[in-house]
């Protein structure tokens, strides 16, 4: 299915257009920030800037296509798809709703990573570590979206997906944490269970990809997975009632 999706994408001219547009806008922001950094207007290293934009790009893509909306639609009208499928609910949601969005986004992430490798801004071992962190964040995003979708259905509140999208995009694309937090608060923020923009946010705060990132990620991965697992199990019986 995923290869089929990639094949379909490659045959669709609109796909190339969206990818080129995405690449241009992302490149523009990277160049702008690098320029601002050169002018000493931004206190970030070049590595921080490049990784920051590579990581937020995939989230932007997911927010734009709001995974929560897709999952909510699957859990509501398509309840037969997941209740009667021999596959597990997670597999159905992951394969049918999450992966297609991610697949759309893969070429640009891939290109960005190639750029990082060829420009040598990050050693290979750090790059692998970075990719692993990205993968973990995406898993967290998936589990968090499952939780969001369940609450959207329970509350009959489509505003939830809008709020998540809005908060996520604002949080990702701005310096908000740095503006409102300083000193000890900043250090404390590093240990907060991360939300969507965990890596990008922390990349703005730390000069290096250190152990604090992985601790935060795993704490939040555990919380998001456990919560979504319990809620989903309850949701299955709830829709049968």
């Amino acid at each position, binding site marked *: 299915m995923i290869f089929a999706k990639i094949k379909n994408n490659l045959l669709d001219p609109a796909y190339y257009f969206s990818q080129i547009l995405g690449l241009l806008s992302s490149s523009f922001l990277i160049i702008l920030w690098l320029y601002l950094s050169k002018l000493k207007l931004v206190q970030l290293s070049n590595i921080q800037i490049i990784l920051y934009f590579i990581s937020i790009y995939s989230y932007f893509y997911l927010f734009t296509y709001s995974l929560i909306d897709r999952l909510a639609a699957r859990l509501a009208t398509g309840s037969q798809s997941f209740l*009667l499928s021999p596959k597990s609910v997670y597999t159905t949601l992951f394969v049918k709703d999450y992966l297609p969005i991610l697949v759309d986004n893969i070429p640009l992430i891939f290109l960005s990573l190639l750029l990082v490798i060829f420009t040598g801004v990050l050693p290979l071992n750090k790059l692998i570590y970075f990719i692993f962190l990205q993968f973990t964040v995406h898993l967290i995003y998936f589990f968090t979206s499952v939780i969001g979708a369940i609450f959207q259905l329970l509350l009959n509140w489509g505003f939830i997906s809008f709020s998540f999208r809005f908060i996520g995009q604002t949080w990702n694309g701005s310096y908000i944490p740095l503006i409102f937090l300083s000193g000890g608060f900043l250090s404390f923020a590093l240990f907060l269970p991360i939300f969507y923009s965990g890596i990008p946010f922390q990349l703005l705060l730390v000069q290096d990809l250190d152990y604090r990132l992985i601790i935060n990620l795993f704490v939040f991965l555990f919380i998001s997975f456990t919560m979504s697992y319990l809620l989903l199990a309850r949701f299955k019986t709830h829709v049968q009632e």
Partner: protein
Amino acid sequence: MIKVSGLTKKYYPQDTLSNLKRFFNLGQVASLPPAVHNISFTIAGNQTVGIIGPNGAGKTTTIKMLTGLLRPTSGEILVDQYTPFELNINFKKSLALFRGGYPNLDDGVIVRDQLEDRLNVYQQPVLAKNLYVKHIIRLSQSLSLLDSVPENLSQGQRHLVEFIASILHRPKYIFLDEPMLGLDILAISRFKKVIKYLKMSLNPTIILTSHILQQVVDLSDRIILINHGVIVLDDTPDNIIRQNTFDRQIKLHLVSRQGTTDIPSNTYVKYPWATIKTTKQSLEKDIDSGMKRFQFDDIRITEPSVDQIFTKYYK
């Protein structure tokens, strides 16, 4: 074998507060009046059963309970040895549910790839080696549709391929809820061919619900009519039609206006047609009197349509 006894289903309000209360067990929520009330029936293997009734009668609720999508408020359902709402993996593999108007293929992915994916999930041979699926595709004349994405197909075309997608794992129980919704007569004919092939090749139990009553009568071995959540009729289509069609109409195509004045009360003339309303018992007598009264060159004897037969049970 499907065994249903004392089945009742009450829904709950779907507002935010009620949802949260129920979800987190925060208090009692008053249920709505029962959608299905104390129904019982047994369906032996290999039968095709049509479940009919007016809107809101409880047909879809019954099908949802039979497939495990809903949990009965009280009563018991056994499909073979399985209780549907427990959603045992073997139970899930043995059934197919197709609901007209509820897409089961995803947009953006070519139909053929989605069919292959499903075959893989159900551990069936791939499309190229799957004679059963290939034959269904041939019968439904949908080969040319497989290389499209679902959103590019017409409503009827999409409907057909989604139906195929739902039955390609050789299910033992097939549940069809409004399966012919939006199909034109050609598509309905192909659909019926597929159903006949399924009956022949898989010997499945088919539960069918539709508002197109003639289609249900054509396809079913037995009809269960539900209204206000209870079973009103449960018999073979032949028996129901025979026991309920006492009325007949004799239509004569007149060649002159002779005999069209002072006509009996059961006769209505709209020249050149004269219509005599009669019953099965008086048919011979009324044909005889019509022949004597009118000069005509054509005669038709009609019985009420299936829709007319069932209308009285829908009230």
